[in-house]
């Protein structure tokens, strides 16, 4: 018994080492967020009169609610596209040799580390009036006048899906790697076809990765300020730009603070739904 505390001593470090970062977060992360909350609970810009006026304003204003709704919907659409396209990449990754695996992982990884402005800029080149899609369709004689692709919901969803795809694919690759390949063979030799095996065995077992990927993709997609504003243009307004306009252009800080808090809560709600699902699925998937 005497050896146990001593051995714990050498293999672990005191919590004191976390103190500097904890203090840093308290001062520069927790305190600002608390101040944001404090300011959002005031009815006037000077922050003198307490009240829920900012929240009431947001929650009774159809325009603000519309912005919130379209932002949450955008996140759902992007996440769905990423899941449908990302899953086959992860599936393929587990079935190719090490050389191809390295190529696939690099293709997935590079965009993650390339500047978001650069990646968004690429979509302007692709979707624009003189862009690749319009140029190709026109030269093939399929269309006469250029299609409007930029500044549409379709454009924003596709661009965001490409920008956020790595966040979905990496957890999927991880979780698929942990599934025992014998299960596949067992299912097939018991007479289940490939499709059935996929939907009844592989997909349920990969749920923890699916949920991790969905959480990251969703959170990133709804806050992707640059892609939303450049590909969406002026007509489409989402929460980040709404927040920025209120804070920066209109200098309405208490309302901007209330928007931030509502946005934070919306993200937290979505993340906690995913986390709960993840906890439930862990008993199921064992990963």
């Amino acid at each position, binding site marked *: 018994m005497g050896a146990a505390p001593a051995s714990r001593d050498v293999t672990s470090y005191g*919590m004191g*080492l976390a103190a500097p970062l904890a203090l840093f977060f308290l001062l520069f992360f927790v305190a600002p967020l608390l101040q944001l909350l404090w300011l959002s609970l005031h009815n006037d810009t000077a922050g003198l009169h307490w009240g829920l006026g900012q929240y009431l304003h947001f929650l009774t204003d159809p325009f603000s609610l519309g912005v919130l709704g379209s932002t949450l919907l955008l996140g759902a659409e992007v996440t769905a596209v990423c899941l449908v396209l990302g899953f086959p990449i992860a599936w393929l990754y587990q079935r190719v040799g090490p050389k191809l695996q390295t190529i696939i992982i690099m293709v997935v*990884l590079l965009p993650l*580390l390339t500047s978001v402005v650069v990646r968004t800029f*690429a979509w302007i080149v692709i979707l624009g009036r003189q862009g690749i899609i319009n140029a190709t369709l026109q030269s093939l004689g399929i269309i006469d006048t250029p299609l409007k692709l930029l500044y549409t919901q379709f454009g924003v969803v596709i661009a965001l899906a490409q920008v956020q795809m790595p966040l979905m694919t990496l957890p999927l690759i991880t979780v698929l790697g942990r599934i025992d390949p014998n299960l596949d063979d067992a299912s097939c030799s018991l007479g289940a076809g490939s499709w059935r095996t996929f939907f009844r065995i592989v997909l349920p077992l990969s749920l923890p990765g699916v949920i991790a990927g969905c959480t990251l993709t969703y959170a990133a997609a709804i806050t992707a300020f640059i892609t939303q504003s450049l590909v969406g243009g002026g007509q489409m307004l989402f929460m980040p730009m709404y927040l920025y306009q209120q804070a920066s252009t209109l200098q309405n800080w208490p309302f901007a603070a209330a928007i931030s808090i509502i946005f934070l809560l919306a993200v937290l709600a979505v993340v906690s739904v995913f986390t709960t699902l993840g906890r439930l699925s862990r008993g199921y998937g064992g990963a």
Partner: protein
Amino acid sequence: MSGRKRTLEAFSFELVMIVVAIIALILIIAPSLVVLIVSFTSGFSLRFPPPGYSLRWYVELWNAWQLHFAAKNSLFVALWATGLSVVLGVAAALAISRSRTLSARLLDSLFMSPLVLPALAFGLAALMLFSLVGLPVSPLTLVIGHTVVCVPYVVRNTVAALAQLEPTLLESSAVLGASRLYTFRRIVLPLIRPGIIAGAFIAFMSSFDNVPVSLFLRDAATDMLPIRMWQDLEGKLDVTIAALSGVLIIATVALVAMMERVTGLSRRLTN
């Protein structure tokens, strides 16, 4: 079920999966390739394919002093934020990695929360606090803001590296009479160094690319590269930005290839 029916069924499944995977991989890589090709255009527009090829926009980029200025600021802030993140993050990771106490788990969630919370809301909050305490917007406020959103990458990668460290190594070292500091320097640090470097690299890249925090915490004197690019793109579609994008894409490819050799980056992100 006959054997042929099953092979047809298996074939249809594999065909769908492989085709979708290839489409997805092309979708991921195509935009970067398109920008690279367009950046060598000899024309004045972003037309694809370009009417001809030249290096004129790279020459133009050489003279774009506003972009140089913003790039220098971004580099300065990213280096400081990364350094601060490594010092604070590695220490915190050592403390929380092997502890199963409630406080360790709470701290872990706290340190990870900037990853999922909307960074724009944090940027606004930080600006409000700094203006409340009378700290003007400066490179210092930028470094502080960037450190908050970058430190999670260092903490996460260091914790992952520590989790793979064999505790018996530390016990043997202690039994053989090494002090804790000596064990840390000679055993722990060399073994977790690739993890720390990988975390620092991702932190650096995300700081260099950060928009939501910089948006509130910079001014004209501390212009940051991604924001300069964004504002240029909002105004007009400038081909110089395509050349700059080309430079950034090539630099990223080179850095990732180097990191893959030094730290096995791809294995770390899929484990």
